[in-house]
């Protein structure tokens, strides 16, 4: 999928991936890949500024825990505000998706003349 197109929706994608339960950055990326069947494959580091930004906006809460490996790990969870935001964005997306579908249904498939 086009990187720029994906970046525009990254906040919603991250919130959706975390809606299943608290997770650290690596697990969020794995969850996004799993749910999108590998279609969403961004540079993994791109997720971290998004996580921090959503935390700063109060949509995620982060806390440090000690993993089984003994390493310190930051785990994120969706806040109530984040859940509300995700619900609103999902509703907008569904409307948009239905509208785009309707537009595409009225058009003919493109054939390469070459």
């Amino acid at each position, binding site marked *: 999928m086009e990187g720029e197109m994906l970046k525009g929706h990254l906040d919603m994608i991250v919130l959706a991936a975390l809606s299943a339960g608290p997770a650290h950055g690596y697990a969020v990326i794995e969850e996004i890949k799993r749910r999108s069947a590998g279609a969403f494959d961004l540079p993994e580091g791109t997720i971290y500024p998004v996580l921090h930004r959503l935390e*700063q906006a109060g949509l995620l809460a982060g806390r440090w825990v000690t993993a089984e490996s003994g*390493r310190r790990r930051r785990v994120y969870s969706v806040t109530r505000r984040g859940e509300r935001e995700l619900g609103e964005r999902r509703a907008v997306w569904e409307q948009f998706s239905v509208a785009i579908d309707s537009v595409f249904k009225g058009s003919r498939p493109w054939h390469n003349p070459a």
Partner: protein
Amino acid sequence: MAQPGVISEYAERLARELDFDPSLARGVRREVEDHLWEAVSADPAGDRSDAEQRAVAKFGDPHAIAAQFAVVSVARQARTVSRAGIFVVAAVFMAMKARLGWYAVMEYPAPPSGALSAVVLSIDRGAFWVALLVAMVAWMYIGTRPIPSALTPDYRLQLRRFFRLCVAATGALLASVLCDGVLTSIRLAGTASFLEAVVPLASMAGEVVCAGGLLWSIRGMTRRTASASRAARMR
């Protein structure tokens, strides 16, 4: 063949790119190292060095990641300063109330009812309420702006407006503290013992420290914003 320490070298590089915000750099470094080691342990290939190289390559360019963090850092700074503004105005109010309480307990004589006192008192009250009001507007303004994924011209404009609000609130607060100083010195003019004046002087010192602290945090915010903006522009 991968060199030993590929992950720590990468994390170090990223932390250097984030030097505009040392506490963010420390946290991100720890987080990124954990991520990369997790990726290495999940790598199905047997060669650990190659797995480290792959993990680092998949993570992306540290310059680009740091540029995305720049806006997060600036937003965090601005929100911290907005909360500090409210806290400082509240602290100045409490110091002022403590001083007035002390005057009552110690049965200080009423302040001389001269024209100077009346003017200074009205400036003091007006400046204090302006400081509180503007600090609250600044806090609400920056707290309700969505944080963009990059330092866009719109967000820069919002930060400039926020900075002006902070300067206005701090200016009003400094005027109020200055007036408090004048009123306190008028009130303490006839005080016989130093002990009686300790609480008013301590509360005045507290007000000065609070207002100075707010100025200092605004200065810190502008410096960090400038270096984060440079970091974002350079990439």
